[in-house]
């Protein structure tokens, strides 16, 4: 060690690139395809564990609490509550770079938009989903607020059909 430290202040650096080629990722057949297919009819279908009564959305195949296979499917409410939320600052170029792609420059996200991400539990479920909270100002968002699903104008049975959630009707005493 002594010799190494006396001799070098900096290690030699060699630039390298690594093309990992194609991988085959395995996932259980069918269960998520079916979940997403139901988006065409604007339905959210979860799975029900008969062991503990938990309803999972997104659906899961095996209940980690009971360790049993789940086969029952149930439609759940379009309404839910916000369990936690995050608010991005107004987006700028160079701020959101994923795997070398600038998401604002590439047009995936708009310059200046402020994104609210909500962890939503749909009514009757025992799990949560991360979805963008739309049509709301950051200052109006609060934990526990009621939200409802927002669907794409034309639903094709893809994950992107469920665009996000928006505040549900607000009834107040006046």
């Amino acid at each position, binding site marked *: 060690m002594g010799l190494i430290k006396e001799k070098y202040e900096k290690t030699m650096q060699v630039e390298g690139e690594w093309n990992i080629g194609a991988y085959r990722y395995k996932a259980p057949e069918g269960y*998520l395809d079916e979940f997403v297919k139901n988006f065409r009819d604007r339905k959210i279908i979860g799975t029900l564990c008969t062991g503990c009564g938990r309803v999972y959305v997104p659906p899961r195949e095996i209940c980690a609490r009971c360790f049993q296979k789940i086969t029952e499917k149930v439609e759940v409410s379009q309404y839910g509550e916000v369990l936690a939320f995050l608010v991005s600052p107004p987006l700028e170029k160079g701020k959101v770079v994923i795997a070398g792609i600038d998401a604002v420059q590439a047009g995936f996200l708009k310059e200046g938009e402020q994104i609210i991400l909500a962890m939503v539990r749909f009514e009757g479920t025992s799990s949560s989903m991360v979805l963008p909270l739309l049509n709301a100002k950051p200052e109006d968002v609060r934990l526990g607020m009621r939200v409802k699903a927002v669907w794409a104008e034309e639903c094709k049975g893809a994950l992107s059909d469920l665009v996000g959630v928006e505040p549900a009707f607000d009834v107040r005493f006046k």
Partner: protein
Amino acid sequence: MRNVAIIGCGQAKHGRRTDVNQAELVAEAVWAAVEDAGIAPEDIEAYAVGNMQGFGGIAQPDLVFADYIGAAGKPMQRVATGGTVGGSVAHLGYYEVASGMYDVVLAVSWEKHSDSAEPGATTGLLHVAYANLSYMMKVGMDMRSFAIMGLAGAAAGISAYQAAFYMARSGCGIEHFDMVAAKARRNAAKNKYAHLKWPNCTADDIAKTEMLIWPMRFGHVCPASDGASCVIYASEEAVKKLGVEKPVAWVKGVAAYADEEADQGEAYQGTAVVDYSDQTGAILSAMKAYERAGIKDPKKEIDVAEIYAPFPHQELMFSERLGFFDDGTAWKAVEEGVTEIDGDFPICPSGGVNATNAIGSSGMQRVVEAALQIMGKAEEHQVPKDVRNAVAHAWGGQVQFNTVMVLGDSPKR
């Protein structure tokens, strides 16, 4: 189970280390520990090693450094448990001695983030997330959703939600996160091995940093450090045989529990974890480790703790889950200065993971720092109070692995 002592600790200087390669970085911590223990390399019978798989751009660095740390011709095992790995390596080394398999075992863990272009992200996180992302693309995730995921992805993203959950549960505000982060930077300034040092840093200084994604500021986030940490374990008989006279730290109890992963699981399946600040795994680990260590009231019997908290809300959250404060009250203790170096219950006097995060090293560094506090060798950041028992905690995985080690100044009887 036999009594086991930590007889030597070593750390590499943490930070951006362009002057060494991975093998040299690991060797730096190892030889510091051997020197500290005052033993010869031949005395070491076995090696436990580990880092966060894939983060330094070399998939299996343990293959290239065995001879740098004197492990040639000896048993050497690697563990990998994501961010928890330092804690798991510390446990493995302990198991090997406690079981009676070996008398003197060296445990070292490390990380070298700076070798990767976006520290850790390209080689480390993508290999964790790529399968899920590919699958979600297949079922029709659009590029906008993909980019939104990037806004709050990986450990920092999950932790940002966790911070919001913790705020809802405890009633604390972002100003309390500022206080904890400022304490980490201040304490780190007293630790010669730490990365982000900021003498006299105040909560206001942290509050002035940019908001990355509410409720997490730039000043709340840990650095991506390079570093290595190492401990040497010896059985009670070996401590006598080797003639170790200086103070040692005794391992009194360890426990590690996994929980269901938070957030979407494998291939976008839901999980039943609906509050990320629950941390059932941490609660179970702490309860079992205390039971094994004979600790009945952690609030009174533990003197100092090194918690794995890359983000400030986690120091608050875990200090409650580990039983040092009641649920939802740790931020009040921070307001009162209880967790400062000279407070009644010092937490992360070294500056902790928030100031220095060489992921693989971080879990082990908690054990090293807890041991140093017991041995009275923490130098400038030594807590002034008498330290009889200390806790070292590590966290990682997909928010769901926890390890807890209780160290003491005397062997368990």
